[in-house]
Structure formats: structure tokens, C-alpha cells
């Protein structure tokens, strides 16, 4: 039973526009959430995180929003660039414990 779900396997966005990647989780005990980015032939790399005491965390073009009541988080990329084209994994879990990963969303940013 997947505790972390990314319901959109793919997303295509025009360069310069906003990309919004969504993630839902089922376990209300989860208190830490991360996004990883994966290019082909490479392992995932950490992108941004948020703890449950916050509802927003921003790092440059990347912002993660957390809605605890809906058990939903999203990653916003503004403006999107072709180099952002990758697979994005959402991960969630209890802080300092093992994370559970979603299935990933393949983002394509078109020039």
C-alpha cells in the first residue's frame, strides 16, 4: 500500500511558465517531506524539504507548499527552465526515520 502518491506520471510545461508537481500522503504521522530530482542515468538528488511545522519553504525558483489537513504537498518551479526537465520524486516520513517515496512525475519543460 503506497503511503505516498504522485498521481501525475508526467507534466509538460512551456519554458518560463510555472510547473506545479503534486504529492499526496496517507500517514498523518509523517512530519517531514522532501523533493528529489532525478536525471536519466543518475541517482536522485535532494532538492528541497519542509517540516510539518511550516506550510511553505522557498529556495530560489523552487517552493514547496504543505497542506497538512489535506495531506498534500506541492512543488512549484517558477520560472521553469529546460534544465528542470527530470523526474521528481516526493518523499515523506517521520523525521530521522526512513522516508517513503512516491512513484515520480516526469517533468518536461519545452523551450
Amino acid at each position, binding site marked *: 500500500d*503506497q503511503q*505516498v502518491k*504522485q498521481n501525475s*506520471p508526467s507534466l509538460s510545461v512551456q519554458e518560463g511558465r510555472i510547473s506545479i508537481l503534486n504529492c499526496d500522503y496517507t500517514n498523518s504521522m509523517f512530519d*517531514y517531506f*522532501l523533493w*528529489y530530482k532525478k536525471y536519466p*542515468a*543518475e*541517482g*536522485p*538528488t*535532494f532538492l528541497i*524539504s519542509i517540516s510539518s511545522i511550516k506550510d511553505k519553504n522557498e529556495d530560489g525558483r523552487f517552493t514547496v507548499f504543505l497542506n497538512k489537513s489535506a495531506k498534500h504537498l506541492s512543488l512549484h518551479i517558477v520560472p521553469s527552465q529546460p534544465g528542470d526537465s527530470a523526474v521528481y*520524486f516526493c*518523499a515523506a*516520513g517521520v*523525521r*530521522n*526515520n*526512513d*522516508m*517513503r*517515496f*512516491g*512513484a*515520480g512525475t516526469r517533468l518536461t519543460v519545452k523551450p
Partner: protein
Amino acid sequence: DVKVTQSSRYLVKRTGEKVFLECVQDMDHENMFWYRQDPGLGLRLIYFSYDVKMKEKGDIPEGYSVSREKKERFSLILESASTNQTSMYLCAGARGGLRETQYFGPGTRLLVL
């Protein structure tokens, strides 16, 4: 720069063979993880280790075992490979107090015929 390396990028094995996947990290991380990545299922945790000679089962340990004799090395073992173990295998390391932020190796794509 942190580094997690995996012994092979691609591997082809036959059903019933014993398979070793090796992972080495140079970050002095206490925690190491093995995942498999399959389409539509994301990364699923097979086993992890939080110290030398310690191991814990993840979500899908059946058909796998692990070995951690040295801090920097974490091996995944398929005792008798089966076709449903064809997958991408990813190793990761993480610091003791920050198991959630993991550093991944490039992956090993295993094909079992």
C-alpha cells in the same frame, strides 16, 4: 563533494544465479539504504543499515539480503535471482541525525533472464 558509487551500471544475470550489488560511500555516513525503482511504483525500500553489522528490513525485503561489514560498504545480495527482480537498484547514504536527506548512487540496472 559527496560520493556514492555502485559497482555496476548494468548487469545481466540468469534466473537462479546469486547476485551481489556493491555500494560504497565516502561520506562517513552511518546510514545506508538499498531501494529498487520500478515504473509506477517509485523507490521502494528493500533494506537499510544504521551501523556496521546492523541491518533492518524495509518494505520489500523478500528475496534479498544485505551485508555491512565496513561502514563505507553496503552490499545487496540476491540469493537466487528471479525475473521479477529485474529492476533499477539504487543505493543511498545519510548522516546519523538526518536519515531523511539521502545521497544516492547512480543506480544499477539489473536484468534477470
